[in-house]
């Protein structure tokens, strides 16, 4: 049976197996490749997207469980050519090297700031613990999240 997905404000009707990971559907069937495969175990956070505003690991989420819910990917953050404040903060702090973890990292940070608009440094470290940046830019990512939080006023 076809599944209907609402991704970044558009709806897509897809004929895919129920248990195909959402990550695979986003990347391979909708060509939304900003969301990355890093481990397939839910350990690295590179595949993070928002499901009704909550962060999920799309590599461990069967597409059927995302049906009918609002899915936001990294491609959905930019509005009318303007970067999301978290994206801008990552750029301002150059909080990346190879950039492969960055989309998942940004989605995780957006979710963190949605649930806690003014997190302490400890809360940022705890909130982002499920994301791996192998290049080791954590200190800059913390600074970027703090910068974006300060814009929350």
């Amino acid at each position: 049976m076809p599944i209907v997905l609402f991704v970044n404000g558009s709806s897509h009707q897809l004929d895919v197996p129920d248990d195909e990971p959402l990550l695979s559907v986003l990347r391979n069937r909708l060509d939304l490749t900003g969301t990355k495969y890093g481990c397939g175990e839910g350990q690295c956070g590179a595949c993070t997207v928002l499901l009704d505003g909550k962060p999920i690991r799309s590599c461990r989420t069967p597409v059927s469980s995302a049906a009918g819910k609002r899915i936001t990917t990294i491609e959905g953050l930019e509005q009318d050519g303007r970067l999301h404040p978290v994206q801008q903060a990552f750029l301002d702090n150059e909080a990346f090297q190879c950039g492969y973890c960055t989309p998942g990292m940004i989605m995780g940070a957006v979710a963190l700031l949605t649930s806690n608009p003014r997190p302490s440094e400890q809360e940022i470290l705890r909130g982002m613990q499920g994301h791996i940046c192998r290049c080791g830019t954590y200190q800059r990512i913390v600074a970027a999240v703090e910068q974006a939080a300060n814009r929350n006023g």
Partner: protein
Amino acid sequence: MNQAPEFLIEDRQHDSIRRLAHVFDLERRDFLKLLGGGVLVGISASSPAQESGGAHRQDSEGNIPDSLAAWIHIAEDDAITVNTGKVEIGQNIRTSLAQQVAEELRVPISAIQLVMADTALTPFDAGTFGSRTTPIMGHQLRNAAATARELLIEMAAQRWQSDPATLSAADGKITNTKTQQSITYGELAKGQQLARTIPADPAVTPAKDWRIAGTSVAKVNGRAFATGSHRYTSDLTRPGMLYGKVLRPSAFHATLISLDASAAEKIPSTKLVHDGDFVGIAAPDEYTATRALNALRAQWKIMPQPSESELYNYLRKNPEPAVKGVRRRDRQVSGSIEQGLASADKTLAQTYTVAYIAHVPLEPRAALAEWNGNDLTVWTGTQRPFSVRDELAQALRISPERVRVIVPDTGSAYGGKHMGDAAVEASRLAKAAGKPVKLVWTREEEFTWAYFRPAGVIDVKSGVRRDGTLVAWQFDNYNSGPAAIATPYDVPNQQIEFHPSDSPLRQGSYRGLAATANHFARETHMDEIAHLLAMDPLQFRLKNHSDSRLRAVFEAAANKFGWGREKSSATRGFGIAGGVEKGGYVATCAEVAIDPSTRNVKILRVVEAFECGAIVNPNGLRNQIEGAVVQAIGGALFEAVHFENGRILNPHLADYRVPRFGDLPRIEVEMLDRKDLPSAGAGETPLVGLAPAVGNAIFAATEVRLRALPLVLEGLGQNSTELKGS
């Protein structure tokens, strides 16, 4: 210290495949035709790489030689293109190289386009490794850009019949400073078919006068990473593309006894390839490919092989089988080690070990292969596109001229992406399927079928006088490697040797190579001697070397850290370490906290001073240093590949712990900018001080000396040995 043999042996660690130099096969005229005319300055591939002053090797007409290392092209429409075979893997050279060209050409950074790592478009390059891009390619490109600038000035002078000394280059134009007459580079290039190599002594801008180089230019395509729009290899698609999967043996060196593919072959649109021990699947989507792979039933014959429990003994007792004509042993002797030890007041002998660790690039190995008749194009994340091209040619029995390898900016590598395994596999599947095939390794494949940083055993025997003068230094490294094996300390009697072993696991290049292991052993041992003599570890180090650059980083790190200000306690320790490698000078101070109940070690604060000559991009360098410190925490405190009889026991991120946010110490970086010195690379050396600094801090707190990486206090006593004085 003799650099040359070490460099050669180190090269072999990067490159197990030897090759003849590639001969660039385009005719000069074709070359400019291809580029649409204009002005081209090429860098001869035979130029002595690191020598200052550039290379002088052009033919009598001043034309480009057959073999180039890189070139800069100025087109009629003002477009400035730099072609280099180097790859961008997060180290930010797309930005730092562009900065250096922009500096010499007097144009904004946005005017420069870098074409990187495409074997059809860029000249041969041995690979991106060994911290060589900045000192070699950067140096060459500055020379080439300065040559282009002078050439454009000459052209304008000729056109205007004026004295070149009255002309200046700025903002993409040549201007006559007297008449204010000006002309753009593009207008000068119009209708030209001009090609040059670099003269002996191009007028390169000294670092103290840099205005674009030497500044914190933002990553050139940073926005593409923040929006997810950058396409890594694993993100690419081609029309009609299939998804590939490879059946992996149940252990290393296993041979296939039987294969039952009947269930897999019943899955529609699935292509099975069975060629020797290679079994792979190509299917229209990833889900189907995975399902078909899981439906294969295979039986493997496993060979008994060494396990982790016997690793260090094995490395010591099993030298690498001799390769004909290649002597990998590297022995450096000065003075007499026997006399040195005999003359010492105290001697110390200890053994240090380092585990195999994995690179864990977040983008796994990936390739997309497409055949067009007998021509093959492969997009893949590799540090050595030209050797992967040759690997493909050999594996698929076609000539290298028929293979094109393209490397999109890649999701990191850390020395782990030298080989073309995924490229070969995807190409084999694509050949059989008659359609393009993309293959992305799973994390488990990454952890198992890639290769590892060599494990190693290092024996150190030293002799010292009561006043703290080192008199003897014997250093034997089994398998880990020769990088940074030489001591930077002044010791009259030395014997230093690298003994390659027959490695139980596939091993290869790694960020920093053996510099991490050799610094760990050396700087831990130095700390042990200091304690044996009841000397301050920093003073002991400063007393034993005469290198002013090394002294400068030690003092800078110690000052910023407040070394000696606070005494270590049972739960809080302070440690220091440092060294020199690949032209970079590093000193690291660490503060650790020891949990008295769990014996867990947490690094609270790291201060690192680093000096690599003139800094090309301060923010980029700071990012590299901070990142290196974080990556080094993994190898220092928890990373180790566990294996038993040909199987990896922890091939998942849940079992192989890498540094996370919670492991982050406060990192303070002190960069010493030596504008009077040539720029060296910085991708590797900032890693090497962390592990010994942390180990020394653990000792300062607990009096337990850990001599094995990773440093683990659990099972207190297991790793500890009492200091022995003589």
